[in-house]
């Protein structure tokens, strides 16, 4: 066990800092708490920034240069994610392409599909990922959007919901049911299709968040005809692709969760000082308890990384999404508390820090739902990490 990094890793970090100083636009320097891609689509600065990252090998640094990286080590990926989080820099305003679709195409796609990976990671192609449906939320394998094969094409009918970026995506990485055996287990008979979003028969109805922002949508498919060569991987065997997110960065997925908690905590400390609450014994203990959680979870992330880097699984990381998303909810809730009667004020001229606290609180409510609810996270840890029997 040791605290410090080797010279080569420190040099890597220094290179990254120099790159960010030179190239990072001010719009990309913001805490993720505030980021929501707007209804109009991907802003010009975000497009240019993602391409610049890619072209300099800083988009997914563990990838080779032709995929926007520099073949860095797992520890360097961790340093990279940490530095971005510390500076509040976002890589992209839409994670579907570089984090999910690009890596999945590289692993499961045919040659033509693999050629889409680079422009997907560069952000030239904007993707949405069609997973959740009205009756397939936590129970994703229950999805019922159906694709019927007739040799040359698939014909797709059904509905997706909570589909991030659908209002402005070029393509959809869409999970559909192709299996016809009603007796088969639910997760068999699922396939993945690449569907162009301008195909006739697709209707996108944007959904407004409780924050007011529009980021995701309902997507309706009515007799949408998709060429057969858009099937990714094997027919009826698409379930395993759901696990195909950015494996290279899996050891560092916790970094943003901890960084977001740290930003909220720093904000709380500053808020307590401004409001003269930093001498209040109750508030002092609340802030200290919050600090204890943030600091211990950061240590847990690193501890898990040590297991991950050795090639073994990292049970520690199974806890991180659950713990950091629940913690952020507590922290923003505390922020509203510290504001007293002004906690609920949204009027722009009166809301503290431009509405940071109520807005962050609303966003934190989504973090314990999206990407696997806290209940599903606990179920998963219970069975896969603690080895308890399935219910």
């Amino acid at each position: 066990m040791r605290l410090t990094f080797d010279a080569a890793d420190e040099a890597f970090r220094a290179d990254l800092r120099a790159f960010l100083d030179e190239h990072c636009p001010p719009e990309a320097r913001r805490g993720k708490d505030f980021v929501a891609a707007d209804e109009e689509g991907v802003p010009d600065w975000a497009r240019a920034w993602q391409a610049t990252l890619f072209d300099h090998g800083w988009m997914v640094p563990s990838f080779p240069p032709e995929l926007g990286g520099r073949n860095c080590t797992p520890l360097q990926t961790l340093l990279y994610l940490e530095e971005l989080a510390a500076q509040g820099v976002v890589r992209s305003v839409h994670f579907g392409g570089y984090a999910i679709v690009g890596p999945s195409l590289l692993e499961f796609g045919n040659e033509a599909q693999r050629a889409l990976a680079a422009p997907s990671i560069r952000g030239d192609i904007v993707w949405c990922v069609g997973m959740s449906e009205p009756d397939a939320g936590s129970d994703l394998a229950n999805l019922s959007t159906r694709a019927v094969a007739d040799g040359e094409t698939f014909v797709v009918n059904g509905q997706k919901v909570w589909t991030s970026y659908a209002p402005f995506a070029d393509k959809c990485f869409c999970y559909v049911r192709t299996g016809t055996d009603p007796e088969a287990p639910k997760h068999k008979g699922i396939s993945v299709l690449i569907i162009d979003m301008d195909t006739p028969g697709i209707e996108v109805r944007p959904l407004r968040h409780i924050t007011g922002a529009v980021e995701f949508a309902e997507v309706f498919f009515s007799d949408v005809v998709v060429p057969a060569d858009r099937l990714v991987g094997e027919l009826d065997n698409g379930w395993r692709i759901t696990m195909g997110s950015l494996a290279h960065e899996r050891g560092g997925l916790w970094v943003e969760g901890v960084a977001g908690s740290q930003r909220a905590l720093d904000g709380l400390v500053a808020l307590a000082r401004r409001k003269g609450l930093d001498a209040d014994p109750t508030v002092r203990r609340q802030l200290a308890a919050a600090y204890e959680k943030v600091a211990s979870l950061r240590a847990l992330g690193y501890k898990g990384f040590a297991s991950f880097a050795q090639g073994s699984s990292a049970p520690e990381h199974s806890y991180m999404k659950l713990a950091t998303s629940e913690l952020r909810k507590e922290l923003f809730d505390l922020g509203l508390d510290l504001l007293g009667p002004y906690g609920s004020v949204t009027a722009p001229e009166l809301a503290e820090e431009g509405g940071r606290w109520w807005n962050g609180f609303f966003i934190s409510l989504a973090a314990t739902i999206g990407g696997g609810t806290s209940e599903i996270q606990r179920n998963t840890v219970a069975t896969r990490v603690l080895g308890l029997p399935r219910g």
Partner: protein
Amino acid sequence: MDFTLTDEQQMVRDTARALLQKECPPALVRAHADDPAAAAPLWGHLREWVVLGDGPTTDLALFAEECGAVVAPGPYFATAALFLPVLRAAGLTEEADAVAAGEATGTVALAGADGRWCTDPVTADPVRTFVPEADGVDRVALVLPGPELLVVDRAQLDITPVATLDTSRRVATLPVPPGARGVSLPAEALAAAIERATVVLAAELVGTARWLVEASVAYGRERIQFDRPIGSFQAVQHQLVDMALDLERATAAVYYAAMALDAGDPDRHRAAAVAKAAAGTAARHAAKSGMQIHAGIGYTWEHDLHLYLRRAYASDDLLGDVTFHHDRLADLLLG
């Protein structure tokens, strides 16, 4: 930071685990509760490991974690984590060398009437409380205002054992002899020694919490009700996950603090407070939820669970409980 254990650290952990599992069975812990002399054979095995008190905090913490996992009784913690480092802090090399060689046991008396282990300033109270193992060790190091250190034979003090929840760690109260003076003890070195002992105690607590979590998970797997293991019920699973999460983050916080102390990192003071608070939280949580999951059988005297529950709560109190360390953290964060 890198949490990968070195070969040597792995060896310390493996050796400690094997030794303590073998030499400190629950029967010994129970016998010690009735007669402290029952822990003497265990000390015979642990004395050669006191030397870890002179080495990196990480290694001593790894050893202590295994002590906590068997709720080891006896003078090991007091001697290796408190007495030896405080002797070193005072420059009492000759005596420290003998202690490191396992030739004598000792403890430190610092907390005054309020029971708080405060090093700045050292209390002028005429009494010392919560002195670990004071009625069994060879020597007692009295920390006096100044600070100064007076090391005396146990027999020279009027020691009163104080019963606590925890029958696996003995504590005592003793009066400071009137007019007592000792050798000069640099304040910074004293504070560092106590901070280090705090992190080592946090490691012990993590070991205690680990047993509670593992025992509860095992019970969840084997206890059948309504024709299935109770660990298949979500209400039980989620309690176990939350216990395990608090344990995991406390474990990481303890090893981070140990590394920060060893490196002299500026973050070490906050890290130590985080470690003890997180470990106390984890152990208390695991004790309460562990009791709920074991239910009736856990509430019996025969079951070992209460030995761990007792140790968890008493060790949280020793060297500052969760609230004490939150207050300390608040001072460090907010001034």
